[in-house]
């Protein structure tokens, strides 16, 4: 699905990530963890082609991102659901239209997909909030809306950056269950989080691999969590 081979990345200063090799197999469930500023968001961006590695190779669905045009990346995004760390909505459009945005942006008829949209809104529990504007949402509502938008195209992969940031424990468990559900539907899931308690809680529901960024490298974390 997504493959990083001896990848390094630097924003211009010293290397933030070095010699990273990670393979996300189809249907797998991964956590990516590490302290704040370790490079979790950066690594995720490398995984969805928003950043190009300064060394090494990133392959998304088998294609080298460095050989891609911007439009190729755009088309790849439609097969990957991304939950951005800051959710990222169009604040002037109601929640429902924000969730349907991947459909309209890819030229699909949003009207035809209205039933899917309704199901999805119900799944994340936002039916009542469909016409609200994003700035009016609570933290948990924002995260659920972002997750709904990430999966509306039925992507093969879901990449979620701190999907439980800014929400209370109950809400984080609810979001986690949604993500586990997606994985049970066969989707590859990668969650970046600094919250170790979330990872411990997940172990009950799903067989997850935990990748930890430490000293610019990624290690597979063991039972020490």
């Amino acid at each position, binding site marked *: 699905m997504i493959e990083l081979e001896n990848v390094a990345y630097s924003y211009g200063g010293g290397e933030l990530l070095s010699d990273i090799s990670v393979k996300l197999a189809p249907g797998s469930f991964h956590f990516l963890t590490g302290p704040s500023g370790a490079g979790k968001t950066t690594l995720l961006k490398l995984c969805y082609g*928003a950043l190009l590695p300064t060394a090494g190779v990133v392959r998304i669905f088998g294609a080298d991102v460095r050989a891609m045009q*911007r*439009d190729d990346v*755009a*088309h*790849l*995004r*439609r097969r990957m659901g*991304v939950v*951005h760390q800051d959710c*990222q*909505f*169009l*604040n*002037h*459009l109601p929640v429902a*239209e924000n969730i349907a*945005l*991947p459909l*309209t*942006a*890819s*030229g699909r008829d*949003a009207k035809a997909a209205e039933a899917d949209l309704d199901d999805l809104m119900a799944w994340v529990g936002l039916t009542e909030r469909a016409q609200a504007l994003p700035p009016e949402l609570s933290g948990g509502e924002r995260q659920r809306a972002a997750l709904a*938008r990430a999966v509306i*195209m039925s992507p093969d992969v879901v990449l979620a950056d701190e999907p439980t940031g800014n929400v209370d424990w109950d809400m984080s468990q609810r979001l986690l269950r949604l993500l586990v559900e997606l994985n049970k539907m066969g989707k590859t899931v990668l969650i970046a989080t600094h919250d170790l308690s979330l990872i411990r809680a997940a172990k009950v529901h799903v067989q997850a691999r935990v990748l930890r960024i430490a000293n610019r490298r990624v290690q597979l974390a063991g039972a020490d969590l």
Partner: protein
Amino acid sequence: MNLGLGNLGALAAGDTQADRVVPRTGFTAQLTLFAAATMAFLAVFTLALSLASGRLAARWGDELARSSTIRIVAPQDQRAAQTEAALRLLETTRGVQSARALTDAEQQALLAPWLGPDLALDALPVPRLIEVIEAPDGFDATGLRLRLQAEVPGAVLDDHTRWRAPLVQAAHRLRALGWLSTLLIALTMGAMVTLAAHAALAANAQVIAVLRLVGATDTYIARAFVRRFTLRALGGAAIGTALGMAAMLALPRASDAGSVLTGIGFQGWHWAIPLLVPLLAAIVAFAATGAAARRTLRELA
């Protein structure tokens, strides 16, 4: 990215959903509308000026008709011979397209207003007139005068209509200036739309980031901006053109359309020309916004 002119049609057909992804900003919208209207208004005037000076040049040029007259003032018995001699000389003069002596009847017609219709030309020392039509590049009047002086003593070259030549040239210049102004207005319009589009694109960097995140292509993103600015320019220019044409209609029209001042305006089918201004504005805005969008999207990559 595919933003050829062929897409202008698809653009007009509309995609309201795509339209909504860029938030409406009242201020740049109004500025673009205002600028387009003003530029269109000015364009209508410069077009009118160009067309009017073109008409003036044509009319004055026609009146010149590149014709001069040679009068043969000679005693009755030598008149025919000198006329013949002058005509032969003219045949070998560079820059003379044709020359012919007026017939008695034509001369009589010319004099009738003054001397009455029953004039006996034979009885009067009326000079014989030769009409000379110039070739496009004209003849050397001084040279011709000298040769006539030497060979046909009774011939007088009268090229008084030539004085208008500089005026015709001025009218041609004025027309060229009018077209140049129209072109400059179009370029200024393009520059203003580019600035407005850049401002809008920069202000919406966040919107562009979101669209990219959800898999929108550059073409899709650019089109949302291009469509908006094109329609705005079209609307503004339509308003400006309508006002400009109304102002043209309101100009007093003198019966003598030969004057520069009263001759400004459109005549006949020329009224259709300013109708092209909004279309031109739309094309300029389309191209300018497209270029601005491509540049910004490349920079934001």
